[in-house]
């Protein structure tokens, strides 16, 4: 691409310069906010970093009156609830997206209605999910789902605890419902963007509907779906109020999926405002720093994986 000759650029170049400046400032501003956030989190937690060092994330005791702050159980809780949310949410969200983009084409009204309803799920405030979870889902899990799981699957450590409903599994279910709209909305757009030539080619080879979806559409949209998953994971990791109501808030390392747990976000909600000395203040800021770094690490690995996947395929999305 050759650069425009200078005479052509001079007309309206002032407007161009202003535009460049404004847009550039916005971009730089966003980066500055991100960097500033990291710097503030680090400086606010410096006392705690100095006191605990790496033991902050590897130790398991959180005891404020004794001034001991370690967050490994909370990191575990965040990872487990988010993993559960992805485990249940990805198939469901992807299923909705496939239905809307591949199947509901023939019944357009149904597709639009279903699509709007799924997106409405995203509009519900997360506190409402928390309240609903506490008052409706928790008794349901406690009385029907978890005893059944314990009876049939209790031989594995995963379901071997007294079921009280307020635990990691219930938090995982609530998070699943919250990330389904994210995954399905983005996946549907990605699937719609797959060119029809791909589908037509498969049909012409004699493939069934499901084979077309599985072998032509999904592989083409793979990296986009992966991006949708990461968005969902990001939402699950950062979800606060909905999780705090139902996760059980127990500071010990959870021994099974149906024992109460604790997440980094719930920790901040519960602790904020009750800290009594600078060390506990700094520890709380460090929890925020850990959460921030966790989000960055997840995003980084996601991008690396997407890059490797698109690099090795013949398709370009």
């Amino acid at each position: 691409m050759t650069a425009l000759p200078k005479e052509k650029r001079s007309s309206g170049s002032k407007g161009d310069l202003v535009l460049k400046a404004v847009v550039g400032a916005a971009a730089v501003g966003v980066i500055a906010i991100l960097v500033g956030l990291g710097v503030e989190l680090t400086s606010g937690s410096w006392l705690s970093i100095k006191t605990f060092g790496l033991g902050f994330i590897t130790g398991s005791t959180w005891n404020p009156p004794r001034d001991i702050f370690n967050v490994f159980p909370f990191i575990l809780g965040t990872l487990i609830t988010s993993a559960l949310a992805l485990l249940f949410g990805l198939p469901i969200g992807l299923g909705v997206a496939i239905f809307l983009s591949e199947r509901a084409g023939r019944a357009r009204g149904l597709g639009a209605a279903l699509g709007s309803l799924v997106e409405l799920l995203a509009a519900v405030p997360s506190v409402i999910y928390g309240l609903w979870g506490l008052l409706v889902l928790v008794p349901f899990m406690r009385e029907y789902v978890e005893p059944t799981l314990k009876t049939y699957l209790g031989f594995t450590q995963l379901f071997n605890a007294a079921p009280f409903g307020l635990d990691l599994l219930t938090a995982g279910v609530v998070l699943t419902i919250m990330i389904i709209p994210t995954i399905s909305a983005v996946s549907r757009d990605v699937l719609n963007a797959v060119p029809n030539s791909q589908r037509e080619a498969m049909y012409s080879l004699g493939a069934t509907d499901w084979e077309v979806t599985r072998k032509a559409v999904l592989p083409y949209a793979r990296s986009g779906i992966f991006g949708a998953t990461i968005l969902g994971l990001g939402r699950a990791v950062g979800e606060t109020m909905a999780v705090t109501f139902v996760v059980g808030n127990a500071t010990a390392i959870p021994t099974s999926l149906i024992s109460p747990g604790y997440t980094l976000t719930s920790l901040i909600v519960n602790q904020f405002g009750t800290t009594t000395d600078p060390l506990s203040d700094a520890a709380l800021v460090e929890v925020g720093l850990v959460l921030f770094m966790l989000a960055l690490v997840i995003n980084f690995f996601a991008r690396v994986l997407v890059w490797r996947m698109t690099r090795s395929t013949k398709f370009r999305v």
Partner: protein
Amino acid sequence: MYPLMQAWINTYSYLQPNVQISYSAVGSGKGIAGITSGLYTVGESDAPLSAAQYAKLPANSTLLTIPISDSGIIPAYNLPGITAHLNFTGNVLAEIFYGSITMWNDPRIANLQSASVAAQLPAHAIQVYHRSDGSGTMYGFTQFLSDSNSTWKNNIGYSTSTLAWPVGIGCLHNAGVADCIATTPYSIGPLEIAYEIANPGQINYGAVRNAYGNYIVANLTNISQALAAGVRNGLPSTDAQWTGFSVIQATFNDTSDAYIYPVSTFTYALVYQDLSASYASTSQAQAVAALNFLSWVVNNGQSSAPTSSGSTLGYPPLPSSAVTLDNSLLATITYNGTPVL
């Protein structure tokens, strides 16, 4: 405490429309930090300052600790079919919340009950609930547990911030604990009396044994009586440090009054004695307004803080001995050498 302060501010704003009071419900730790830095004219806390917190106050300052309200903490539970108030001692409660007692029909619980109630206790595991956030309610409750049981005192202790509860599930705020207990049969948890009074009959709760030996079912009267006993047993003098003072500890061994409820606490307002000092960051007008409000709270606001609809909020009134003490404390606050009130 927050609904009460909000109700007071609402009522006072009808009486004195020119006075604007802003209130941040941020927890005792921030309340103390705020008054130390001069951010607030009046700080509020569920616990007196610790020695370390007193050390952080500005040099040559005197901070007054003024009791302005009280609360009681009840052991609420959900036992299907049992309507009687179960009897508890502090020691048994400590063992339940520590995890040493795990079944409702444990002999340690059964022995405290009458024969007919003991026979009704189910052979079922106890589900323990507690607050997941820090609060004055938990501070008072765990202080009582610490006084009653040395294992609890040595391993867990008490605090206005969150605690390392050995067993049980944490629910957010009093309302969360109440919801958790209401939806879980065979559960128990500590609750502020205000919640039960505002929602009578929805939660069952037990009686706690006091030093005299009686099992007391908490109500506004016997909590007030406990606080009166606390005042009688001696509060720190006017401008002394209140570190370590607690009504629960002061009345733990008090056998003079047979009907006090042993898990009762004050909440305190914190004000500098010299409001004209630079560290207080207060103008004369602000000082006058603030002290008039506090004086109203202490003298007129104690009739269960009526809301506009006339219903009671469930916070016990200060006993008259505390009101007298508070008035004398408020009278010592000066601005540029002259008393404000």
